[in-house]
């Protein structure tokens, strides 16, 4: 996919917002001042980026671990290709599923093609939720597994920004 209609001002805005939205009564005014845009222009650009899907969400993302969701399991499923979309969409409706993707198998070692991230207060809870997914979606006969996380080493985010101006900002990305 191309760059959509992103221009240099949009990229400057993306960069300056990387550290988070300012906790100021007029956050968009503050952002605009940093990069020489008016508050109205900042608001318009952000709205455009949301409409075009460049920004997929605008709000807060919680740090699961710090809020008691200390276990996370990546549930992986070997779903027949023709059913993967239907099952994936249904899985996304369960409240404890935070991400759900179709990914290619890496045969023979990796037979799974559907990934659903499941969060809970402990491993038993996560396992019970995965069992519930299998039950409710009638996937008990489908090969599946849960990969529990042991440690998280790095969550610094992705790089975005304007290479042309030599700016390499680290933006968090989930």
């Amino acid at each position, binding site marked *: *996919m191309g760059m959509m209609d992103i221009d240099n001002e949009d990229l400057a805005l*993306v960069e300056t917002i990387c550290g988070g*939205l300012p906790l100021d009564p007029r956050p968009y005014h503050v952002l605009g001042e940093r990069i020489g845009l008016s508050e109205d222009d900042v608001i318009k650009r952000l709205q455009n980026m949301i409409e075009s899907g*460049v920004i997929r*969400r*605008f709000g807060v993302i919680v740090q699961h671990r710090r809020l008691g969701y200390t276990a996370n399991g990546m549930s992986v499923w070997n779903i027949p290709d023709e059913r993967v979309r239907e099952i994936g969409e249904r899985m996304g409706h369960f409240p404890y599923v935070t991400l759900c*993707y179709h990914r290619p198998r890496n045969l023979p070692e990796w037979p799974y093609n559907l990934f659903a991230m499941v969060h809970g207060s402990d491993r038993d809870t996560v396992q019970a939720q995965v069992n519930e997914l299998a039950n409710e979606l009638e996937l008990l006969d489908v090969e599946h597994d849960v*990969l529990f996380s042991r440690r998280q080493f*790095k969550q610094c985010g992705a790089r975005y920004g304007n290479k042309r101006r030599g700016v390499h900002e680290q933006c968090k990305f989930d």
Partner: protein
Amino acid sequence: MNNVNSIELDQTDRTIINVLQGGFPICAHPYAQVAKDLGLEEDDLIARLQRLKECGALSRFGPMYHAERLGGGLTLAAMKVAEDDFERVNEIVNAFPEVAHNYARDHEFSMWFVLATETPQRIQETLAEIETATGIKVYDMPKSEEFFIGLRLEL
């Protein structure tokens, strides 16, 4: 919720987080608008958000981008790393600035990381560089289709 690292939140904090996980207004006085909807004062809302950020309850506040639509590349990669080799490989992998998240998981495929690059073609180059640097095969698992990206948990 008996984890030592857990943070104590009161009901107002929970409400704020639950509402803002669903979105944040883009208008001249967004905090005032949210505060009004929740029956709070604007400065109280800002002070609470400040505290929630500082104590690490929020991992981010602002936009979440669609990497590909910003012109970048994104993939999930996995490696089979032996337990006694994990530290060595982990250090090498995390030194790559393109590695955004890296999780150790209980499985033969024990290392899982997200790669985010400035251009799509950098994905394959970076995967090859990681293979060379570690001597271990990297499995590329890019998304074929996305069904749900909520990243929301009711508190």
